[in-house]
C-alpha cells in the first residue's frame, strides 16, 4: 500500500511553478495492478518517481507500507566503470542482502551476457545493458513493481523469457506501470489512474480510464 497524503509537486520554470500534482491525497492498494495514463508531459514519470521515493514532493508525504521496487528497465542506476558483477553486488548490498553470491550467479544466468558480466558496464551494448538491468531488477522480490514502458528488452526469445518470469512474480506482487501502449495496459492492469490538470482520477476499471484518456 502506498499512501499519498496531501502531496504537491512542482517544477520551477521561467513562467512560474509548473504543477505536476496539486494537493493529492490517495491510497494505492497493494493487490491491484495499476496503469497510469496521461498525455506527454503530464508528469507520469515524475509520479512514478514520487511513488518509488526517488524524488520527494514539495509538500505532503508519500508513505510506502510494503516493499516497492525502483522503476524497472531503467538504464541508469549502474556505475559504468564497475563490472556487472560489482554492480549487482552493490544493488544487493543497499537492499540489505548479505549473501550476494546466489543473486550474482542468478543475474549472470538470466541476463545471458556471459563473460561480459565480468566486464565494466560502460562497454555493454544497449541490448546487453537492458537485459542486465532487467535481470537485476528481477532478482529481488518486491511487493509492488514500478515500471516505465517495460517489456521491450532484447530479442523475441528474451522478451518471452522476461514476460514469463514477470508473470511468475505477479503471483505474489503487483504492478504500477506507465505506458502509452493501450494493449499492454489492458493486458497487465486492472485499475487505471488518469493524470491530468495536476490531479489524479482513479478508475476502478482500466477500460474506463483508457476510454476517457482516448477522448482527451
Amino acid at each position, binding site marked *: 500500500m502506498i499512501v499519498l497524503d496531501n502531496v504537491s509537486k512542482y517544477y520551477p520554470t521561467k513562467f512560474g511553478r509548473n504543477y505536476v500534482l496539486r494537493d493529492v491525497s490517495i491510497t494505492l492498494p497493494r493487490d491491484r495492478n495499476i496503469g497510469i495514463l496521461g498525455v506527454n508531459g503530464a508528469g507520469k514519470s515524475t509520479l512514478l518517481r514520487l511513488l518509488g521515493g526517488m524524488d520527494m514532493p514539495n509538500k505532503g508525504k508519500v508513505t510506502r507500507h510494503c516493499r516497492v521496487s525502483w522503476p524497472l528497465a531503467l538504464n*541508469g542506476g549502474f556505475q559504468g*566503470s564497475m563490472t556487472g558483477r560489482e554492480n549487482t553486488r552493490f544493488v544487493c548490498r*543497499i537492499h540489505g542482502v548479505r549473501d550476494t553470491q546466489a543473486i550474482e550467479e542468478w543475474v549472470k544466468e538470466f541476463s545471458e551476457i556471459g563473460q561480459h558480466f565480468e566486464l565494466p558496464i560502460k562497454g555493454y551494448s544497449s541490448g546487453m545493458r537492458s537485459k542486465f538491468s532487467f535481470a537485476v531488477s528481477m532478482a529481488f522480490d518486491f511487493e509492488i513493481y514500478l515500471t516505465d514502458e517495460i517489456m521491450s528488452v532484447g530479442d523475441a526469445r528474451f522478451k518471452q523469457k522476461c514476460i514469463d518470469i514477470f508473470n511468475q512474480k505477479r503471483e505474489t506482487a503487483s504492478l504500477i506501470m506507465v505506458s502509452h501502449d493501450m494493449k499492454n495496459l489492458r493486458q497487465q492492469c486492472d485499475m487505471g489512474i488518469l493524470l491530468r490538470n495536476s490531479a489524479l482520477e482513479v478508475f476502478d476499471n482500466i477500460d474506463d480510464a483508457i476510454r476517457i484518456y482516448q477522448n482527451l
Partner: protein
Amino acid sequence: MRARLSAGPFCDIGLLMLKPVLNQTPRSSFQVLRDVTFGLLIRELKTRFGSYRLGYAWALLDPLLMIGLFSAIFGMRGHSGFGGAPAPLFITAGYLPFIFFKNVVSKLQSAVNANKGLFCYRQVTPFSTFIARFILETIVGMMVGGILILGLLWFGFDAIPNDPLQVLLIYLLLMIFSFSLGIVFCITGNLVNEAEKFLGLLMMPLMFISCVMYPLASIPAQYQHWFLWNPLVHALELIRSGWIAGYVSPNVSWTYLFGVTLILLTFAMSSYRLSHRRLIAS
C-alpha cells in the same frame, strides 16, 4: 536452440535459489544507512584507484612523490628552518594531513555528481555518499601515514609520534572539519553553478598560507595573528607538536580548532537538511 534449452531450467533454479536469500524484516533507517554506506564504500574503493595502472599504489605514491620532492628542495636548507626537526619528518607531519584535508574536501564536493546515477535507488542519499567518501579518505590517510612512518624509520628518522593520541585526535578533528567544509562546498556548488570556480580559487593558495612547509614560528610575531585565523594552521601545528618531540607551538589552541569545526559541522548539517532534496533533483 541450445540456449533456449539451458535458459528454462536455469530460470527455475534461480528462483528457487533466491527465495531464502532475501530478508523480509524491514530494516531500521540506521541499518539502511549502514548497508548503503558499506555498499558505496566498496564501490568507491573499486573506482577510486581502479582506473590507474598502479591502482591502490597511487594512494601512497602521490604523497610520497610530493614529500620526497619537498624534502629534497627544503632539505638543502638544513635543519634550521623547521624548528630543529629533520626535513622529511617535518614535511610528512605537515603535508600528509594537509593533502588528506584537500582530498576529503574535493572528494565530498564531487560526491553527489559522481553518484548521480545511483540516486535512483531511494536508499541511496547524498549523505551516505558523503559518509562513504569521508570514511574511505580518512582510512586511506591513516594507512598512508602508517606506511610513511615505517618508511621514515627505515631511513633512520625518529618518526614514531611522540604523542600518538594527540596526533590521532587532531587528525580526526581535521577530518571532521574537512567533512563539513566538503559538504558546504558540495551544496553551494550544486545550488550555484558558478560557485565551483570560486571554490577552486579559494583552495589554491591554502597550501602556502597554512604552514604546510614552514613552522608558524618562522612567521614574524606581529603577523602571526593573521595566520592564526586559519583553522588549518592550528591543526597542522598541533599535529606536528604531537608528532615531533621538542617541537612547540605556543600560540595555537585546540579549542579554537574544535570550536570552528563544531560551528562548521552544524552549519553543514543544517544546510544539508534544508537542501538535500535539491541535491538529488538537480
